């Protein structure tokens, strides 16, 4: 149903993504594609897979940016997937009820069997989190790996999204952002996690952690010359104590 849950979901499951350690390796991109191709949201098709211009459906993409200039410049990799917004207009615009937000955990999903492929929800998503699948003609989006995180047959440590499990830079964290005492909320508080484009009013669940300030070299006082009392290399003898 395209109506959003009446009251905020008790749990707000989502991701916290650390721009400080993301190295842009694309592991999360492929893991997401691989899991979801064969998972609940799948298949995620690829048109012209071995042709001139391959073009497929992806639920998570990583962009490389340069930010700032000169001394302040840095390279920032930015993973982009659904933020599971509280005020998800992608849901309310949907004419068929295919898009919905789950009351129990806040996950925004598409019911592939109801989607007519009108694309309106993709237009309504400011974050570019939805893609129309060329083969099935239905809208696809990050499911927060709903078929992993709640699969009780998996050992508890594996009940996390594929992109989180795979991230070698440990830049992706999964959990309940509604829990103010939980690890995610604490991480967000400690690191000044931000909400993307709050001015649009979508109230995303996911948060991004900005790069840490970094420790420049300039702070280092230069070394002082070894006192040359005992002449050239005298300090060696002193160091050896003999």
């Amino acid at each position: 149903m395209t109506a959003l849950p009446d009251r905020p979901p008790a749990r707000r499951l989502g991701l916290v993504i650390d721009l400080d350690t993301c190295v842009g390796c694309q592991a999360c991109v492929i893991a997401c594609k691989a899991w979801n191709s064969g998972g609940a949201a799948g298949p995620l098709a690829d048109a012209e897979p071995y042709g001139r211009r391959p073009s497929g459906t992806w639920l998570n993409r990583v962009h490389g940016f340069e930010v700032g200039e000169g001394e302040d410049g840095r390279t920032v990799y930015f993973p982009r997937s659904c933020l599971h917004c509280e005020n998800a207009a992608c849901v309310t615009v949907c004419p068929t009820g295919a898009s919905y937000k789950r009351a129990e955990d806040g996950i925004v999903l598409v019911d592939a069997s109801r989607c007519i492929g009108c694309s309106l929800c993709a237009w309504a998503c400011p974050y570019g989190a939805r893609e129309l699948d060329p083969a099935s003609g239905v809208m696809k989006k990050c499911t927060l790996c709903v078929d992993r995180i709640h699969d009780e047959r998996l050992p508890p440590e594996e009940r996390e999204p594929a992109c989180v499990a795979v991230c070698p830079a440990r830049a992706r964290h999964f959990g309940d952002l509604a829990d103010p005492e939980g690890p995610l909320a604490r991480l967000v508080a400690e690191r000044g996690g931000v909400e993307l484009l709050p001015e649009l009013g979508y109230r995303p669940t996911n948060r991004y952690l900005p790069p840490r300030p970094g420790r420049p070299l300039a702070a280092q006082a230069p070394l002082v010359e070894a006192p040359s009392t005992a002449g050239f290399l005298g300090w060696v003898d002193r160091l050896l104590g003999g």
Partner: protein
Amino acid sequence: MAETTRVGGEQPQKVCTTCYMCACRCGIRVHLEDGRPRFIDGNRAHPVNRGVVCAKGAAGILHHESPARLRAPLKRVGERGRDALVEISWSEALDTAARWLSAVRASDPKKLAFFTGRDQSQALTGFWAAQFGTPNFAAHGGFCSVNVAAAGLYTIGGSFWEFGEPDLERARLFLLIGVAEDHDSNPLKLALAAMKARGGQIVAINPVRTGYAAIADVWLPIRPGTDGALILALVHELLRAGRVDAPYLADFTNAGWLVIEDPGGAEDGLFARDPAGRPLCRDRRTGELRPAEEPDAAPALRGAVRLADGRRARPVFELLAERYLEPRFGPEVAAEVTGVPAATIRSLAAALARAAFDDPPFLAEPWTDWRGRRHPGVEARAVAVHAMRGVSAHSNGFQTCRAIHLLQILLGAIDRPGSFRFEAPYPRPIPPGPLPCGKPEQVVPGRPMPGLPLGFPRGPEDLLLEPDGRPCRIDEAFSWDAPLAVHGLLQRVIGNARRGDPYPIEVLFLYMANMAWNSAMATDETIRMLTDRDPSSGAYRIPKIIYADAFYSETVAYADLVLPDTTYFERWDALSLLDRPIGRADSVCDAIRRPVVRPEREVRPFQDVLLELGHRLGLPAFTAEDGTARYPGGYADYLVRHERAPGIGPLAGWRGSKGELVGRGPPNPRQLEAYIENGCFFEHRLPAGTRFVRHGNRDYLELAAELGLLAKPEPIFLQLYSEPLQRFRLAARGHGSVQPPERLCARIERYFDPLPFWYAPLEDEAGAAHEFPLAAVSQRPAAMYHSWGSHNAWLRQILGDNRLCIHRATAAALGIEDGDPIRVTSRHGTIRATARLVDGVEPGTVWTWNAIGKRGGAWALPAETGEATAGFLLNVLIDERLPPGPDGIAPANADPITGQAAWYDLRVRIEKAGPGEPPQTEPIWAPLPRLPGLPDPPGVLDRGAPFAGRRP
């Protein structure tokens, strides 16, 4: 909509094996549903990757299901590279190969050149070559990172390259020099993130700011090929301030060993030794000369002595300090060379000293050093360093990497907590054994060689030279051109074979190396050489080419006989301690790959094929006494039963009849089952007290000898001063029985400096810098492995073409805008590419991703695909040779010590393409013919479909 969120259907079967989407050797689980692979994730128990996988690893399913997979053996019918190959049966393929090879073996085994690329079974392939009797064997190290490997093995007895790791769990400062991805990619990423979380400081020295450099605290955009100057300036600063670890130097290195100073003498610059050959030191307590290896010796680090014979000798450290304290090693000079400001160099030196020495953490793990002294624990030296091809792929890479090790050693930062740490089977003796085999008398028709083709020369006598001084090997490894070419020189084989220099060969046998494309220097020339014919006979100059690949790569098209390999889901492999194991700092590890699915094509694991060919050729190691195959069960059988030395086989785990032994022990028939039960890897944790300062840790050395990692439990002294290099120098000065040809004497004298120094890359010295003002380098993209990602429908969407990245200011000066087509010209040729403007690059450097450009038709891609029309290779611009010297001879574009291909010495000039020029790259190669039997690639891929769609 609160349906349940469980998937229906059976839980998939999860089969553990080892990834082979790159050489990082991560443990993976292949999820099988209805016998089909559905998903790959990491094995959380695995010591390498701890459950993570990279993009390539996760995309392995599409590698395995690629439409470019070879389907059956092939033979050439028409012209190489132009006409299609035809499918033949395995019996015809093996008969042909055996016929060609046995003729060579019976007449002149050297005429087989057997070279392998990205494989991880060099313990088998090298052994096979030795059994065949040819010295002409090597793997890919010569064009990869032999500079780093050799510099490490001749200096610290280990190496950055796969044989060690930075201890980022404890490091305060991490110097990451010239690394984009490397072979330890997942562990390094895990460690970097953990280090950042702890608040450590990461300094990336790299002309390019991507990947790891992007998340570093400090990015030092260095001019390519100048790291040696930077490092030695740091050494200068540390020495000036007296911030070195003198006790460590005295105890665990050759800093106190005495060097003979006897200008003009035959032993000038060698270590003073006692009659038993033991290096001498001056005991700083007694003033006596005595063997430095004696447990109670206290080597003095300074002070000249008179030897008994009257010659003068001085300790290594004194020579070293004297040299690097000279003003020419100061930060100002280095700043001129490197582009890194002198103040920054000083700050970095200070940061190194503080991280290493100020208030160092103490790890209370008691241990005993080689002298027998008991220590209550280990003091950390929390400066970790890691360097790779940014250092290696330059013609000064060997000495630069030695300089880096020198810096580490001076800080006491080898195998201490927080520093570089060895991975088993390292450390090994310096240099490690064995010696290279293949001297004229060792190559006999119809007989195996007495040793392995590759090894570690200690001096000129160990070179592989004909009596007239010409190289014994087709690739000139272990000749005066590349004396320490300890990995062989794959990049020279084709050119030399085509020229018949030093001699013609009959069969070129390649395995898993895309030599007609991205691993060629000067791809265009390589292709010409592969197809060059002798005008008098009309025959190809390289008469027969056998190639084993799993996919339709560019090189397949140039082979006469193609042996189709399986994919890594379909075979056994070993990541062996004899070869390239998966060791970690705290444990001895190895691993296997196991078949996960059955091939449905006419393909065979190459190792099985080698074993069968070995048997057909009657090679003793592969033929039982009764003439039957020694390993009828193929490679799996070999892995279990082969013994290289008594009790030592390819796999170290679960040896002994009951699997109770580690490292050394009789074969265990159930060994592979034991591996499989354990997730396909073996991990033996080193006990406390054997984990640090292993080169001088008595308990470790004894344990390593017990496990068969070391022949003898003797201490390994780190070699600040490299005596083997001096031996070559002395030969160049006219000493000894083996001397370089006249024309190379000056070169040997110059570069074989026993103490590291920096010199400009040879291409710059040859004057290229002036005409070609920009350096051009390539980088590994995280999501692609060399040429083998473009047939992967997922990976190729991420990187299906490449651009040349140019600094904004540099581009502006040239009138180039983002997206402009540009011409890039080197000494060797011109290409057209597309410009991308960036800030994150040293302004005098341009860069692109490596090996993205492809040839249409290869990899089952259409002619007009982006990889072929918008992608490009820098290789086309890289000359295999330098401009001829005054003697008219064009030296190899390589490091003069190791022969390492100098990919990153490339210099170019750039201009905006003319208004009439099309936007495509140039050259665009004639597409390769379609292979018979390859399926038509699907128009839409929805490979998840059989598993998908279960509604949450």
